[in-house]
């Protein structure tokens, strides 16, 4: 058996979403020989993972693995990257889809050298969505320090364009373009990999938990930015009310997840994310303590070790019980009200900071995809084995809440399904 196969690579593969799943799918497909369109809504790649401070269980920075992906991407001619682009129409079927794309103007063209002089010149500010609105950037901004493409963008909702023009005046390479319009383009692809990922469940809907009402109730995704060295506090976890380091931190698991009124599913990663964030707190201060309010602590496989390690830390405690309500105490303290289901007792616990482990809400349900694509009741798409529609393969958190490693693995599998169609040409 020495015969070799010549893969007819056929039409390109479209990957929708440039988070860790889409990025993985794009590089794996390109290295298998395929031409790829990688379409991302944001101005940069990396999605939710680059907003994370560390991965569990190694407590290593996500940008390390992303750097390798980007290194693979930077030099391949096979991936066509389209940022600030969304899919607005899909026609055709496996082997030949016609996909209509809509590209929002970036305001900064490819001449940009990322020198940063425009940022210094810009007089206007905008809320920094990369830091979940906890600080501001200028209206012309680099999404984050290691952003790829390493090119600035203008938030036109906060820019005075020609009537200001300061960024254009200082730019030496003619990169500023205030006049861009929304452009549409139709591409032909052989199959689609949907890697649209997730957004954090809207904590404002969890009225009893006091988010938005009490300053010291924050979400887990905000906690990631507070812990990150390039976050709004330079990596110091400070509570919003008084910018002091919290000594007692409560983690509210399943905030909106496993709850018929909010997200019926288990978001699969929040337990481990909360354990990870407990590590941030415990490592930052030797006299800090953490308490977890949980229903079940879900740490599958070898990730159990990560839970065990935290359980062995006497500064970490666990209460089995859902937090029903959070109220405010003196000096910005937060009071958690829960029922301890083991003892049947009602408990009250006072903390300096409460972190809501909000769940994963699938983006795909609001993406305006064709109604024929199969989703479950929560809006997750049906996966790659039994595809959402012929030639349409969902992967990563678009189909199931999952941690990073599972997403990478799954994205690689989705590429195989796309490869099978592409090689038939």
């Amino acid at each position, binding site marked *: *058996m*020495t*015969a*070799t*196969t010549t893969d007819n690579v056929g039409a390109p593969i479209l990957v929708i979403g440039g988070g860790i799943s889409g990025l993985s799918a794009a590089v*794996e497909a390109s*290295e*298998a*020989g395929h031409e790829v369109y990688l379409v991302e809504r944001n101005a940069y790649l990396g999605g939710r993972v680059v907003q994370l401070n560390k991965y569990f269980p190694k407590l*290593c*920075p996500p*940008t*390390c*693995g992303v*750097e*390798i992906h980007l*290194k*693979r991407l*930077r030099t*391949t001619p096979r991936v066509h990257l389209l940022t600030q682009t969304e899919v607005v129409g899909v026609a055709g079927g496996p082997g030949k889809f016609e996909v209509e794309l809509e590209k929002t103007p970036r305001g900064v063209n490819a*001449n940009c*050298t*990322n*020198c940063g002089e425009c940022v210094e010149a810009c007089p206007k500010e905008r809320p920094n969505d990369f830091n979940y609105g906890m600080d501001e950037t200028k209206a012309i901004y680099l999404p984050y*320090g*290691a952003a790829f493409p390493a090119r600035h963008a203008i938030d036109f909702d906060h820019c005075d364009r020609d009537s200001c023009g300061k960024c254009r005046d200082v730019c*030496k*390479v003619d990169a500023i373009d205030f006049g861009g319009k929304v452009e549409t383009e139709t591409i032909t692809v052989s199959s689609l990999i949907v890697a649209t990922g997730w957004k954090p469940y809207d904590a404002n809907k969890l009225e009893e938990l006091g988010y938005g009402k009490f300053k010291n109730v924050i979400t887990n995704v905000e906690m990631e930015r507070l812990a*990150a*060295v*390039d976050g709004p506090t330079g*990596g110091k976890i400070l509570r919003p009310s008084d910018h002091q380091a919290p000594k007692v931190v409560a983690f509210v698991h399943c905030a909106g997840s496993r709850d018929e009124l909010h997200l*019926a*599913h*288990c978001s699969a990663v929040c337990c481990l994310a909360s354990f990870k964030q407990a590590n941030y707190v415990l490592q930052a201060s030797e006299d800090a303590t953490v308490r977890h309010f949980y229903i079940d602590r*879900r740490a*599958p*496989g*070898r*990730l159990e070790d990560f839970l*065990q390690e935290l359980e062995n830390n006497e500064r970490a405690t666990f209460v089995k019980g859902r937090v029903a309500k959070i109220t405010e105490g003196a000096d910005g303290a937060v009071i958690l009200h829960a029922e301890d*289901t*083991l003892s049947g007792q009602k408990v009250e616990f006072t903390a300096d900071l409460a972190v809501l482990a909000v769940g994963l809400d699938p983006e795909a349900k609001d993406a305006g995809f064709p109604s024929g694509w*199969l989703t*479950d009741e929560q809006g997750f798409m049906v*996966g*790659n*084995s039994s595809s959402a529609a012929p030639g349409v393969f969902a992967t990563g958190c678009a189909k*199931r809440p*999952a941690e*990073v*490693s599972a997403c*990478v*693995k799954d994205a*690689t*599998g*989705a*590429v*195989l399904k796309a490869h*099978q169609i592409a090689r038939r040409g």
Partner: protein
Amino acid sequence: MSDDIHVFICSGCGIGDAIDVDALGELVQSEYQVKPRIHPALCGEEGVALLAAALAGGGKAVLCACSHREKCDVFTIPDRFVSRVSLREGVAWCQPAGEEDTQMLANDYMRMGMVQAQKYDVPQPFDEEIADGILVVGGGCTGLTAAAEAAAAGREVILVEKADEIGGRLLKNHKQFPTKPPYRELEEPVIIRLIETVRSSDLITVHTGTKITSIDGQPGQFDVKLETPSGEVAFRVGAVVQATGWKPYDATKLEHLGYGLSPDVITNVEFEEMAKNEAILRPSDGKPPREVVFIQCAGSRDQEHLPYCSAVCCRVSLKQALYVREMDPDAKAIILYKDMRAPAQWEEFYKRVQEDEGVFFNKGDVTGVTVNGGLKVLAENTLLGEKIEVPADLVVLATGMVPDAADGEAIRKVGEARAIIAKNDSPVQVEMANQTVEEFGHHEGTEILNLNYRQGPDLPALKYGFPDSHFICFPFETRRTGIYAAGCMRAPSDTLTAEEDAQGAVLKTIQATNLLKEGYSVHPRWGDQSFPDFFLQRCTQCKRCTEECPFGTLNEDARGTPELMPTRCRRCGICLGACPERIVSFKDYSIDIVSSMLKAIDIPDEFDEKPRLLAFFCENDAYPAFDRAAALKTRMSPWIRVIPVRCLGSVNVVWIADALSSGFDGILLIGCKSGDDYQCHYIKGSELMGTRSSNIKEKLTQLALETERVRIEELSIDEFDRLPEIINEFAGEIEEIGMNPFKGF
């Protein structure tokens, strides 16, 4: 083709403000007799056109502009070498403008780039014939899926199964828990359909009752020999998917839970078989049980047994509780658990089982099972210390999954120890070998792949026996190129995720063979066409390269001389770093290239009071962190000259010796984090540099130099705030120690 070197200097992004680019250009001309082109924005259309035009007829370029990590889209010229000199991040953004030291730094980086270009040789890609058939090892759910999916992608597959039939553990499954919306109903096992697909494929050859006798060679050229019931079969494949699955944890070790003490204490695997046979009956009296108690984590999440969670047992017990209820609407199922783990959409399934009024859940730590005077499960409520007793007709232990894999490195250790014992040369060695046999002896005879690899006949295993190399970012990358682990041998999985895993592993085999046909390396140095060359006349058979290669690239002949298997190589350069005789080199990365680069740096004499520090930075972590610190315009010592390396493990001690004898005052080596939570994408490069540090200290002592002159640090990519501190602090310390006395010699 011309060997000319074309030099370009960009003055944009503040480079022209910080550095006198005209003076730099004059230096290029006087030292290298090349007339450089200076441009205000090289990455613009005009600059890129200049570069393309210069290289159209051949030659190489030295591009003094931004970091090699920036603007790759426009500065990558197919089939041409472009040496990137980082004047922007490396100089202009981290140094004060217009100073003499700033200019000297730029001059040195330019010289390093020039030398790199002069020494660069075009890699010759591997161009032998590449087979692309796939060997699938294991005929369970994962292996069958892999075979079917590979065939659907047009690949020839040979599937090997040790049992007499394919289907694996799932053949004994009654039902499987839901895999599709609304995630509430049990499904028929997928395995029957999978077996049919595999049996009907023209591209798949199945060998049951078969063992692998040997696998020789390398990716694209694996020569496999099988021992089948009808004799030996030999063939060549390009890549391997190992899907050897799992076995249930040995329940005889769970006597404290009553297993073996009462016939009515059984495992979940045994219960499944009863359900499959439609005979859920108590083994003791053959009567249908009325109360079935499921003990979760029986031997799992338990330091005495399996410390990890087997991920599926909670859902399996939920499924089996429904079997109890289907069998008899009046029967009860009681599930005693630590945490119910039904992740993602399986929450729906959990809810559906909770809705069943005959299924009861109780959180508690099971402390034992009594078998005399009626079967009872004893449990303790952890919080209150309250003891409970649950009477049972039948107890089902939810035992976990043990990977059915072999630990190649452990097998090798025992083999080597046995050889030492047989040789019986030295009592000390024999004693140590006996200890090794005691520790690893149980691995003998567990071989599965029988690879002819110097580092062992199977994949190396990590914690708990699962083979895996980098389980967050690159879950398929084992330490043996072209061999991909999938399914439950890689991580405890349900059938759905095992199928997805198989798909991913198959894609990796296709990708590996397709890349080999193009002469390219696989991940993470995709596109690299170079291979290490070994100048074997000078080899002393010290075996460091063959031992230290993380990917088992090198075999050994009888004398211990390395035998290169090029397509196993991942181009990290660790062999180059390991070799004390300096006989390993890549065309584009070698002892000579780096030594020449560091020797090109101008060393001011000791009275100038300008120390020189040389830094080797891991190209994936420390170097990007350096770029990012520079982008924040953080000031860094002007004494430092940075050389990015493929891996810190590729740093040869001779570079350090050369640097010291050239008059460098200090050497800073920064790799990624090592240890259990290592971040090295070559597994152990950073760790190896740690172990080589004693050689370095020895070298320093021999030269009568302070050991503080060489510092090794570990740094993550996100510690760009700490990096300038490390550099500046090191510079301060070297200034205190004083100048290297070898300057000027």
